[in-house]
C-alpha cells in the first residue's frame, strides 16, 4: 500500500494525481474465510482491523449490502466523548477515545479527529446534580472531565444564550478531549487498512441467510452466493434483528429513525461541541462551516432512514432558543439513520446462542465515538472468547437484571 503523506501528495500533484492506488480492493468473495464480519460500518471494519492487527487473523471478509460506511457511520453527527457515568461504558468509550487520538497515524489516513472539546449543558438543578455525579465518577475512572460555570461557558461558546428565559444555563460538564472526527474517513481509513492486510471488503453483497450445522455457524448466504466461515460477527446496527432472525435467535433491539440536519456553511463561530439535553438538541460546526445538528429519535419502529419532521422542528426550536443567532441560518439538508436501541440503551458485544456467532450492536444514537474501542473489544472477544472491555455488555444481562443505564445522570447516549 502506498503511504499517504504531504510528500506523496506533492509528488502526485506533479503528475496530475494519476498514480494513486485504490484505497481498497474490490474483490470477489472467496469460498471460505476464518471470520466473516457482516456490516462494513465503522464497528464492523474496526472489528476486522483489530482482528488482523491485534490477533493476526487476516483471512477475513467484511460483507456489506450497500456501500461501505453507508449506514449510521456515514450519517451521524460525529460527536466523540468518553464522559460516561457507568464504569463499563466509560472504559470502552475512553479506550475508543484514546485510539481515536492516534488513529490517523495508526491507519495512515487522516480521520480529522478534532479534540475541540465537548460541553453538556446543565439547565435544571437535576441535571447539575447528574453531571456532578458524572464528574465524580469520571475522576475514579481516569477520565478527565470538569465542571464549568455559566460565565466560563459564555467565554468558550460566545453564541450561547446562557440566560434564556426558560432554561438558564446553570453550568456544564466539559470534556476537553472530546470532539469530532470526519465520519466517512473513519470508515474509509479502516477499510483501506483492512484491505492492505489482505482482508476482503465485499460491497453490494447482502447477507440473506445464516447457515448452521446444528448449533454451530458454518457460513452465510449472500446475494453473491454462499460463503463459509468459522466465526461470524454480526455488526449491522439497525438491521441486527433481521440478521439475528436469520440465525434463529432474538435480541433486545428495536430499530428506530434518528435524524440530523446541517445548516448552510458560515464562518467559524463555535469551536466546541455543545449538547443541550434538557431541550433535546446538540450542535457542532463542521470543518466546512455547516452547523451540524442532531435531534431525537422517532418512537416507532422504522426501517426507512426517514424520520418524522416534528423531531426536526423540536430540535431546531430548542437550538434557536439556546443559540439565538441560528434563527437566521437555513437548513440545508436533513436525513435519518436507523438506530438499534437496546433495553437499557447500552450496546451489546456478546457471544450468542449460536456457536461461532458474535454480535456487536445496540450502539443506538451514540456509537460513532466508540468505533475503535468497540472494534478492539469485539476482535478480542471473537479471537479469544472473552474481552474485559466487553465483559458487561453481554446480551444476557437483561434476563439477569444487570443493566448499564446511562440515562440516569440526566444524560443521553449520543
Amino acid at each position: 500500500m502506498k503511504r499517504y503523506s504531504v510528500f506523496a501528495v506533492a509528488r502526485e500533484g506533479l503528475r496530475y494525481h494519476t498514480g494513486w492506488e485504490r484505497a481498497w480492493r474490490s474483490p470477489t468473495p472467496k469460498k471460505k474465510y476464518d471470520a466473516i464480519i457482516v456490516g462494513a460500518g465503522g464497528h464492523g471494519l474496526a472489528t476486522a482491523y483489530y482482528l488482523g492487527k491485534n490477533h493476526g487473523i487476516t483471512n477475513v471478509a467484511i460483507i456489506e449490502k450497500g456501500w461501505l460506511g453507508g449506514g449510521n457511520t456515514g450519517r451521524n453527527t460525529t460527536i466523540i466523548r468518553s464522559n460516561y457515568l457507568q464504569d463499563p461504558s466509560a472504559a470502552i468509550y475512553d479506550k475508543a477515545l484514546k485510539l481515536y487520538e492516534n488513529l490517523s497515524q495508526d491507519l495512515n489516513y487522516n480521520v480529522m479527529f478534532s479534540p475541540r472539546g465537548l460541553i453538556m449543558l446543565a439547565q435544571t438543578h437535576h441535571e447539575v446534580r447528574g453531571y456532578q455525579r458524572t464528574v465524580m465518577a469520571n475522576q475514579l475512572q481516569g477520565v478527565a472531565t470538569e465542571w464549568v460555570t455559566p460565565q466560563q461557558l459564555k467565554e468558550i461558546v460566545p453564541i450561547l444564550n446562557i440566560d434564556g428565559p426558560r432554561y438558564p444555563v446553570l453550568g456544564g460538564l466539559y470534556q476537553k478531549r472530546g470532539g469530532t472526527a470526519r465520519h466517512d474517513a473513519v470508515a474509509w481509513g479502516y477499510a483501506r487498512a483492512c484491505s492492505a492486510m489482505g482482508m476482503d471488503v465485499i460491497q453490494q453483497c447482502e447477507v440473506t441467510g445464516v447457515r448452521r450445522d446444528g448449533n454451530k455457524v458454518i457460513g452465510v448466504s449472500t446475494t453473491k452466493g454462499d460463503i463459509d466461515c468459522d466465526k461470524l460477527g454480526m455488526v449491522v446496527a439497525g438491521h441486527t434483528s433481521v440478521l439475528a432472525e436469520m440465525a434463529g435467535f432474538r435480541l433486545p433491539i428495536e430499530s428506530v429513525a434518528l435524524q440530523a440536519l446541517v445548516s448552510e456553511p458560515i464562518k467559524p463561530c463555535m469551536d466546541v461541541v455543545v449538547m443541550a439535553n434538557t431541550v433535546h438538541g446538540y450542535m457542532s460546526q463542521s470543518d466546512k462551516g455547516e452547523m451540524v445538528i442532531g435531534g431525537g429519535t422517532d418512537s416507532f419502529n422504522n426501517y426507512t432512514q426517514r424520520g418524522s419532521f416534528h423531531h426536526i422542528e423540536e430540535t431546531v426550536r430548542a437550538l434557536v432558543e439556546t443559540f439565538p443567532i441560528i434563527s437566521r441560518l437555513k437548513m440545508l439538508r436533513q436525513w435519518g439513520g436507523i438506530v438499534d436501541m437496546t433495553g437499557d440503551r447500552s450496546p451489546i458485544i456478546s457471544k450468542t446462542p449460536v456457536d461461532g456467532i458474535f454480535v456487536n450492536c445496540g450502539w443506538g444514537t451514540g456509537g460513532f465515538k466508540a468505533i475503535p474501542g468497540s472494534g478492539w473489544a469485539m476482535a478480542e472477544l471473537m479471537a479469544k472468547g472473552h474481552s474485559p472491555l466487553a465483559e458487561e455488555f453481554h446480551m444476557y444481562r437483561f434476563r439477569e437484571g444487570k443493566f448499564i443505564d446511562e440515562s440516569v445522570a440526566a444524560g443521553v447516549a449520543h
Partner: protein
Amino acid sequence: MLTLHCPYCGIQADETELAAGGEAHLKRYGPGSSDDEFETYLFMRENKKGVHLERWRHAYGCGKWFLAARDTATLEVYGTYAAQTSEPPVEVKAAIRAKHPGWTWKEQA
C-alpha cells in the same frame, strides 16, 4: 409523518397527536414464569422489517390505546383496531396478506 385512523374517534390522527407504545399482543409473564419467558416478554422484540403489529395511544385525542398493523419498511398501514383483543381482526389480516401472501401471525405460526 404518519397518520393513523383512531378506531374510537374515527378521525385520521396526525402522528403528533399520538404516542407510540411498541409491539402489540405481548403476553405478560409475572412471578412464577421462567427466565426465558420473562426476558422474552420484556425485552425480546420482534422488530420486524415488514409487518409490525403495534400499540398506539390517541394521546392528544380520546386518550385510548389502539393497535395498528403497519409495515416498517414502507410505512403502509394495513389497518387499526381496538386494543381489547388478543389477535388482529380478520380484515386486517386479509389486508396484510394481500401484500404479503405468506404472512402468518405469530400465534398461528
